[in-house]
């Protein structure tokens, strides 16, 4: 029975999948088990991973933020544009983070205080913020940032780890505490599982939602700046389409799309599964559509397995009675 109780935990399954993927990768490629490769594996998707952490809050809160990738692009473009106008880069970075906060406040206003569904509001954000980004940068690429900026984005900072990777781990620790060991975290779950009950029991739902959407946009803006530093130049289409990968990771991590369920350990494991899977396929010279196909299949399974499991469990209980 205790073995079964262990098995039914989604995280255990993810961990098993991770071990299988890592074992297969090691057999498939002799380049897999190397420090350099593991740094690359994180670094190639680090911005998406950072944004996924805050996305977990939003989905647990029974909302969605489709505008994150556009906010990444917006922040990168605001930074590049401000820098190109002659401002020092640190000021440009502050402006970019400010643009992120504004985008988040805008999302939060319509969702938390006007009461529109987050799906619609952030879909509008996805289109609108991208539009602003493209207007700022037009059809150019803006680069030529100071050396320290590119170095921070591309070179190791502590041991073999880059700044982005360090930021990811710090944020992971912080968000895990916030979600699982703070009053705010409990409110997120309450809002996500039953918003009416939350309202009646005096939870300031509007404030919780505003905090989440502003936090999400601010983290996305930071990720956009890190992405610009990693690539050394910015275009209007920076981070275009990243939102789907980010949401995929969170859902695969066992966070329920209906809200109220999930945790950051699951999201972390899901990140590791997807990154290792993509890396392994890349090293085995499998790219493009096949990779998408495999990750898509994994997502369908992740939705299917818990549902089927629930069904079986219900039938089993019914028979016992």
């Amino acid at each position, binding site marked *: 029975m205790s073995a079964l109780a262990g098995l039914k935990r989604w995280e255990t399954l993810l961990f098993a999948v991770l071990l299988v993927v890592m074992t297969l990768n090691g057999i498939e*490629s002799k*380049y897999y088990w*190397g420090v*350099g*490769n593991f740094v*690359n594996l994180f670094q*190639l998707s680090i911005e998406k991973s950072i944004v996924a952490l805050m996305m977990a809050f939003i989905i647990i809160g029974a909302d969605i933020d489709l505008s994150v990738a556009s906010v990444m692009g917006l922040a990168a473009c605001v930074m590049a544009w401000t820098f190109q106008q002659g401002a020092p880069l640190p000021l440009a970075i502050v402006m970019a983070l400010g643009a992120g906060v504004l985008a988040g406040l805008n999302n939060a206003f319509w969702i938390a205080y006007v009461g529109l569904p987050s799906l619609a509001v952030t879909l509008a954000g996805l289109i609108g913020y991208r539009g602003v980004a493209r207007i700022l940068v*037009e*059809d*150019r*690429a803006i*680069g030529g940032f100071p050396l320290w900026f*590119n170095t921070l*984005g*591309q070179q190791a900072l502590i041991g073999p780890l880059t700044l982005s990777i360090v930021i990811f781990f710090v944020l992971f620790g912080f968000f895990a505490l916030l979600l699982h060991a703070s009053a705010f975290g409990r409110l997120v779950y309450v809002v996500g599982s039953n918003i009416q009950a939350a309202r009646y029991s005096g939870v300031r739902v509007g404030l919780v939602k505003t905090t989440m959407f502003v936090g999400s946009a601010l983290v996305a803006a930071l990720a956009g700046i890190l992405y610009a530093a*990693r*690539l*050394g*130049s910015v*275009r*209007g*289409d920076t981070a275009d*389409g990243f939102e789907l990968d980010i949401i995929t990771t969170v859902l695969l991590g066992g966070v329920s799309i209906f809200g109220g369920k999930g945790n950051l350990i699951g999201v972390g494991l899901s990140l590791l599964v997807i990154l290792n899977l*993509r*890396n392994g396929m*890349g*090293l085995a*010279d499998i*790219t*493009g*559509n096949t990779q*998408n196909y495999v990750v898509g299949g994994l997502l369908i399974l992740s939705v299917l397995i818990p549902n089927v499991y629930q069904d079986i469990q219900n039938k089993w209980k019914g028979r016992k009675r």
Partner: protein
Amino acid sequence: MTKYLMGVAAAALISLLPQVATAEEGMAAPGKDVSMVLLPKFLGILPFDQAHKGAEEAAKELKNPAALQFLGPTPQNSVAGQIEIVTNATTQGTKAIMISNNSGDQIVPAAKAAQAKGIKVVTWDSPIPSSEGEDVFVAQVDFNDIGKVMADMTLNLTGPEGGEFAILSASPDAANQNAWIAGMKIALKDPKYAKLKLDDIVYGNDESEKSYTQAQALIDKYPHVKVIMAPTSVGIVAAAKALQDEKLCDKVKISGLGLPSEMLAYTKNGCAPQFALWSFVDLGYLTYYTSYMLATGALEAKEGAKFKAGRMGEFTITKDPTRAKGLRILMGPFTIYDKDNVEAAAK
């Protein structure tokens, strides 16, 4: 010990040999094990498949025991995908990476990391704009010539009275398309083309559907437009189809760069009476030869180096006049297709 020393001496001699040869003309030494990656802008587009065919032909000729890897991202994920493939190829210790760059200068950090590990980075079809992280660029035709050919074709289609035209390009940061458009703008300054007026430049991202709607939007926005010039094999087909579907082919003509096999129907029915292209098979072949010779040390990426690329004959590495820095190998030439020769080329 003596055996070891003799081995070292022999290796030293062998390593000297190609250098002696480059003083005259680089010759490829077949049969060396050189792992190579051919990286298109993205998968699933005919010209890139043709380049792959040409590269495979060269691989067979050079008897390279390492299989050529043809790896590419999806169009939706082109930038991140290209960077990921270059990074993984670097991890794998590949000897040469051949990139049709769709990532502008965003590919530079990954390409530089590859070079730092001794990997030869050769671009083809579309170069790295700043040329950083790139050994040499294999150019299909002179980029300024493309501009002139596009201007000529536009004037042919408007007739001597001239008129308005628009450009439907690929992605806004495709270095090759941008260079051709810049080349065309320079060509247009010639009084010969004084009666041509460029209305607008729009981008279809090399996606059929987006190119199709962009072409429709152009016709709506500029009712007097007479020619849509699409310097991309995806855009030109999509635009021709849009005009055919709207039954506007007698009013507006399509031209640009396209593949005969894809353009046959539209050239025959008058939607796209004239377009141009070079051989992508040859481009793949020449790129493979260049990269193989660079990776084996038979050729050095420096100005003035000469080499022989199999059936295509002799080439010289020169400065790239279309970029501020960077080296170039110029392939050429152009073929202009119309109703008289398109059918034969489409086969």
